[in-house]
């Protein structure tokens, strides 16, 4: 019983301090990465670009400005939406491995939860846009919503494919838990076909990321207030700042998820340690190295999935978004999925997989009989 109370208290402490720390961490690094991103893309286009601390300045400027609540808006929803988005984004941070360590709440939530929590910021933005009562914001909000529908399909395929692959190899484990996924990288289990599939899935995930973050090609730098940013047309002051922060934190979150899914490599594994050493003075270098390594990985992911795409691609029409995500990208993701599954088929002899239906052999002879196969 005492043990139980201690557990309870520990969880409480983790929740309390973890939330505070990760919130600050997320906000800081979100804004920082934003600045880096802008700088990098400017350099790629041959510009100098703003200084890296520009996002911080933007935020503080917004904090100074006063708020406007349009007369067509519904005040309480209008004010609550930015808050909800930021809160939900911060809460995701507790479920993802930051810095190569176990997630803080590793046994309290899993990948599906993260998938859903990722929706909430977008939802908050949509709600805020809708609630502002302006036609422009409405159009922007519904565009955001359609985009969300569109990219969830490939995203779901990726997540399920990875979990399925893991569950084939790791019987009776919590394959959806991020701690499992990071501890056993997917690359360890795949054969050649599966490797190809994983690469395809990675590519799809990278393409999905800008949509998740409402960046180009779903936005346009010239007409921000009419497209992805359009839903924020009526926002100003600290409410807009909240959305700004949300965007930053979400960038970190998305990148960390990609890292966790496909690049969960740690320094300590590379240097041959069996396990991460306990927290002590001697372990500080390793921890620092882990964090730095993690930040670099995140930076690379952001570079590839946001900056490069942003620089090189034009923007899409709304029906093109649905088409793009539901037809080519989904097909691509399905190809990846099927690659991974057939990889599994070769390994598991007694299970037949047609379109992924795992059914016992004994059920099939009659089906064959119907088809005329002896």
């Amino acid at each position, binding site marked *: 019983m005492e043990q139980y109370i201690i557990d309870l208290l520990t969880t409480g402490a983790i929740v309390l301090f973890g939330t505070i720390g990760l919130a600050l961490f997320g906000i800081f690094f979100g804004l920082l990465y934003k600045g880096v991103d802008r700088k990098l893309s400017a350099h790629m286009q041959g510009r100098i670009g703003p200084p890296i601390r520009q996002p911080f300045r933007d935020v503080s400027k917004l904090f100074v400005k006063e708020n406007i609540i349009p*007369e*067509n808006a*519904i005040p309480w*929803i209008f004010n609550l939406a930015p808050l909800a988005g930021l809160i939900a984004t911060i809460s995701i941070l507790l479920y993802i491995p930051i810095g190569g360590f176990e997630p803080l709440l590793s046994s309290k939530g*899993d990948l*599906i*939860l993260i*998938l*859903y*929590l990722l*929706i*909430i910021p977008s*939802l908050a933005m*949509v*709600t805020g846009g*809708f*609630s502002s*009562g302006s036609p422009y914001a*409405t159009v922007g*909000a*519904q565009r955001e*919503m*359609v985009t*969300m*529908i569109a990219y*969830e*399909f490939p995203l*779901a*395929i990726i997540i*399920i*494919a990875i*979990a*399925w692959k893991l*569950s084939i190899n790791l019987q*009776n484990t919590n394959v*959806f838990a991020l701690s499992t996924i990071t501890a056993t990288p997917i690359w360890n289990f795949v054969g050649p076909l599966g490797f190809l599939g994983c690469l395809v899935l990675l590519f799809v995930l990278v393409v999905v990321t800008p949509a998740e973050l409402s960046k180009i090609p779903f936005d346009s730098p010239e007409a921000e207030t009419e497209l992805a940013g359009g839903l924020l047309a009526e926002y100003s002051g600290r409410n807009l700042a909240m959305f700004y922060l949300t965007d930053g934190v979400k960038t970190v979150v998305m990148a960390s998820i990609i890292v966790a899914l496909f690049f969960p490599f740690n320094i300590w594994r590379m240097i041959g340690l069996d396990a991460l050493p306990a927290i002590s003075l001697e372990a500080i270098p390793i921890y620092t190295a882990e964090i730095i390594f993690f930040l670099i990985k995140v930076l690379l992911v952001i570079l590839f999935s946001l900056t490069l795409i942003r620089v090189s691609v034009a923007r899409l029409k709304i029906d093109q978004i649905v088409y793009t995500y539901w037809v080519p990208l989904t097909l691509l993701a399905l190809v990846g*999925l099927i690659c991974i*599954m057939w990889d599994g088929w070769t390994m598991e002899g007694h299970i037949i997989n047609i*379109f*992924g*239906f*795992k*059914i*016992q052999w*004994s*059920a099939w002879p*009659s089906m064959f009989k119907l088809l005329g196969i002896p």
Partner: protein
Amino acid sequence: MNLPTFEFTPALVVAIPLLGAFLTPLVSRINDKLRNIFVIIIMGLTGFFVFLLAYDVLAKGIKVYVFGANTADTIQSLENGLPLLRILFEVDAMSVLMAGISVILGFVAVIYSWSFMKENTGLDKYYTLFLLMIAGMLGMELTGDMFNFFVFLEITSIASCALIAFWTNKGKAVDAAFKYIVISAIGALFILFAVALLYSQYNALNIAVLGSMIQYTFLDKIALILLIVALLMKAGIVPMHMWLPDAYSRAPSSVTVALIGATLASLYGVLRVCFTLYGNSLSNICNNLNINVHSMLGTLLILLAIITIILGVIMALRQINFKRLIAFAAIAELGYMFLGIGTGLTVLGNPELAVYGMTALKGGIFHIINDALDVGLLFLVAGAIYYATRENSLNRMGGLARNLKYTTVFFLIGLLAVSGMPPMNGFASKILIYESTYQLSPILSIIAILCSILLLAVFVKVFYSAFMGPAQPKFKDVKEVPKSMLIAMGIITCIIIFIGLFPQFVINTVVTPAAEALVNFGGEKGFYINEIIESFTLGGV
């Protein structure tokens, strides 16, 4: 806790609403208010007995009530292998779960209709039919006899048909009621035909007895198909769903809430048929060919479920009638339940995947509760909006969040719950389904996740077009709906939040026993009969 009434609870649960229904015309002669109070008391009493029964069943296991029996004789006949003559109520955790849902929905709807239906005539008939409908659902869910099941099915469908046609001045409502009654009459007749087929072979009507004797002959399979397809139609699965949006959207909202219960009772029938009546091969794994029946049946159910989810969501996205939209969303939710149940049915015979099958089954059953509450809440909100504005079309609404503050909050919670957003109950059951069906085929869970998000989009659209936007001049005088309606919505909201916050608690106490009851019901040959005898000797009727 050995209250003397415990042994009669199964009978009382059905008898009290029936008694109330017979008394309502007499009571309503006296006073309208008295009638309303009377009906609420009857529903409350029924609910009390249902929960008493639930407590009993969850604590002690299966509970049997024999109608009109000398108990000793029945025990003797059971022990000697003599045929069962009388009608039995066999109440296990699954039945109790469904009964609880029906009672909650009915109770809420009755409270709701105090203000909602106030301006209509014919209210005494309305309340009578309402109680009859609830009684019918409860009877369907508690009975252990095939023919009795058919009788209660008919009670439910006739009462609901009459209630759908309540607003007879609207042609559409009468039309929907006619469609509903045709569908349910045909379904019920085919069920009766199937019962007769079973009777012709085994000369028994009790589900458990039949279940222990089923041989999987050709006629058995025909009977199985008739039962399953008819019940699926009554449950409203695609492609036999078309009556459902009509009926749901054109009935008064309070009736629609109870109709959800009726639909779920048919779903319960599917479960009983699959797992109990034809369940004796589920536990002795791979013994013969029979396992293929389950495998094939489960696969077919899954396919139908997938079609149901996709079609329901896609159609819902396009609707502009508020209630019709929710009805299509309810169809999609139904698909989730069948996805879980079908996966369970397919996989349970397979030793490797049986664990996942159990999880899927649990998820399906859990989703039954959640769907009933969520969709019920949404329908109540739709009714509240209709009450306040006399408007059903989303195209003509807007800006109502200013006038209907509480309703907006309730709708927001319903929105989050029905689309399975994290802190709400919908997420808890959907995560069970996602994280088990992927074992059978990843595509299943992918489609499930996608459609869940589409559902969110659907309701965000509703949220926007009904509640947000500029204040419309025509809704200037709209006031918040009366208290009784708010109370009704509040009750459901509280339950939703409770389940959302303590999902594992609910699963442990209610859902897992239900799933286990389903799986073990057929069991080995005669297993269930032994249970009955034990409950007699231990429980002491």
